[in-house]
């Protein structure tokens, strides 16, 4: 599978600040799940470029099914064999996609570890959690069995669980505690990069807050790179430095977290951020906002801009012309035809937003205007 060249030269590489090798660089990544009897092939990720500096936190947002988890798994080549991968995944300059299995195994967990969506199922129910935490330590030859055991206890304490819980089985822990175990496990081999795939979905608000704080703290302490995946834009903007919004297997908007959340350049990003009302913001009182239409079926992505059927500001060209990421301000990119039109970047987006809200007849200009102070 040769990476095809329909995309522009990755703008990210040039646009990104700072030279040298980034911690992670993804170029034109495509993942397609092969056809199986009864279901067609699924192009789950359709050309994604990402870049992450060491110690930086990147948030990936998007609706269900837009390919977030697929992307995360692809980074460590953890996809099932039915998935076909193309593009480049450079971790510290080394291409994961072409690595030997042996090298890959060495990179896994020691170079980059993953906190999976749903800790309930990501832990082996019949092993004690201490053993599960110690397993990668032993595997990567980081310690003797006794030391690994001790380290497991320390890690548990690091995430706020008593070290004695190494003896527990996963089902003896609450959801939040299990998620902590997953985090402890991810830190076991001191990786350079942690990928957290919806670490707080399905958790209670209070526990979600605990976990987010924990992650933030750990990442800051250890100077890790973090990729955090969520569908909650508000959570991501709170936690991360940069934010990428995915739609139908593509990144449609990317930029500094706060800015993207507050003034999204892409209409989809805007819709997402307004879906979570600010309490106290009277404009959203009794005025829930959302996007008409449904997320696209990944097996039948619309022609042109994948978002155009739902886009409130779509132009005629959107239906025919695929939109690629373009610069939309300092350190920001968005894949919207309106962004390219106007060098004003974000301003164009805002204008579009106004047009859209106006079209719906609701008095809500305030959203995008007032939220600016957030950073």
């Amino acid at each position: 599978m040769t990476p095809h060249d329909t995309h522009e030269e990755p703008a990210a590489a040039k646009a990104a600040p700072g030279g040298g090798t980034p911690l992670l660089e993804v170029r034109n990544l495509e993942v397609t799940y092969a056809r199986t009897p009864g279901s067609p092939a699924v192009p789950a990720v359709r050309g994604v470029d990402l870049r992450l500096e060491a110690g930086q936190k990147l948030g990936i947002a998007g609706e269900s099914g837009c390919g977030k988890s697929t992307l995360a798994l692809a980074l460590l080549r953890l996809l099932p064999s039915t998935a076909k991968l193309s593009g480049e995944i450079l971790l510290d300059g080394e291409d994961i996609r072409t690595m030997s299995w042996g090298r890959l195994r060495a990179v896994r967990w020691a170079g980059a570890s993953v906190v999976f969506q749903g800790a309930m199922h990501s832990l082996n129910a019949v092993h004690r959690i201490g053993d599960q935490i110690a397993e990668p330590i032993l595997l990567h030859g980081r310690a003797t069995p006794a030391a690994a055991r001790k380290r497991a206890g320390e890690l548990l304490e690091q995430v706020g669980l008593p070290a004695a819980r190494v003896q527990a089985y996963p089902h003896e822990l609450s959801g939040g505690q299990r998620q902590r175990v997953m985090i402890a496990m991810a830190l076991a081999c001191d990786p350079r990069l942690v990928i957290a795939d919806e670490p707080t979905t399905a958790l209670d608000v209070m526990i979600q807050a605990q976990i987010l704080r924990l992650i933030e703290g750990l990442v800051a302490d250890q100077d890790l790179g973090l990729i955090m995946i969520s569908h909650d834009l508000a959570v991501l903007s709170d936690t991360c430095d940069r934010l990428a919004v995915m739609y139908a297997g593509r990144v449609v908007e990317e930029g500094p977290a706060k800015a993207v959340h507050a003034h999204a350049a892409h209409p989809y990003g805007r819709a997402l951020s307004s879906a979570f009302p600010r309490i106290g913001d009277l404009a959203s009182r009794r005025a829930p906002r959302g996007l008409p239409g449904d997320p696209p079926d990944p097996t039948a992505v619309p022609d042109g801009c994948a978002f155009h059927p739902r886009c409130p500001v779509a132009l005629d060209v959107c239906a025919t012309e695929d939109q690629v990421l373009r610069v939309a301000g300092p350190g920001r990119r968005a894949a919207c035809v309106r962004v390219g039109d106007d060098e004003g970047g974000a301003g164009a987006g805002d204008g579009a937003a106004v047009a859209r809200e106006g079209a719906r007849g609701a008095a809500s200009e305030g959203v995008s205007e007032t939220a600016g102070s957030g950073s």
Partner: protein
Amino acid sequence: MGVLAPDGAGDGAPPLLSAEQVKVVFPGRRGDRAARAVDGVDLDVRPGEIVALVGESGCGKTTLARSLLGLVTPTSGRVTFDGKPLEYASRALKAYRRRAQLVLQDPSGSLNPRHTVYEAVAEGLRIHGYAGDEQEAVAGALSRAGLRPPERFFLRHPHELSGGQRQRVVIAGALVLEPELIVADEPVASLDASVRGEILALLLRLRDELGLSALIVTHDLGLAWNIADRVAVMYLGRIVETGEVEQVLTAPRHPYTRALLSVLPESETEPVILTGEPPDPSRVPSGCRFHARCPVLASGEAERAGVADACRTRELPVLAGSGPAAVACHWAEAVEPAAG
């Protein structure tokens, strides 16, 4: 525009549905202690009013909602609908269930995968032996729920619909019997962010158009802010704070409500993360049931207000089901006696 003004909906009108001192106790399995899932709740829903019931996971929201619909029989206390106490004979329940409908969290689960949209919506009509033109009623309900033209959806199966469409079908299935009350348990929790707004807008519109009352169960305070008139905050089987949404959510008085609001990502206040055991209905603490996790008590503020002992030992009264904003907190009452 609407039948009733959104503000102060049905103020003073007799409640359509009201819970009085409702308790639900689940007997413990195999030697476990009994769980007091709902432990004395008064809650009213007045005609045309949208009430949000919020709280942490496991605090008894769903159980309360189910007991309001007669799906669980309260261990004690009673539920009144339209002035008459609920009867639990199957005939009486069936009649009640024509007037009060349930919308569940998970629209995919709420639809039988083997039934078409038409069958799913017509199910209620068939159960109640609807005399009129079934197809017309189904079409009407679907289009009111925003699925237009309805005929296009008749023969689809749930798996051919998106999550939002499914939830609309569920809502249509509830609407088709022209109920007076809808109880929605986490109606949008499983939906994508972009879709939830539309569903909430639909609920609002239905209230405006049909004068429907609704009880919305949710753990999402933003949702309450989005659509509810009144909000009741539940903790460990009790309602701890209730009142108009604007009042409760912008000026929360109960430390629990405050904590809930503070951990929202965009909250400006410093997040107050509650520690201690998550609430367990089989072990309800004495005194104020929140005292073990209460940051106010922990920080000594309650001590300063002179209510620390009361917090630990004195039970709080059950809050009234409707009426002005109220809070069940010794401390709040002590520091602001005037309020309420």
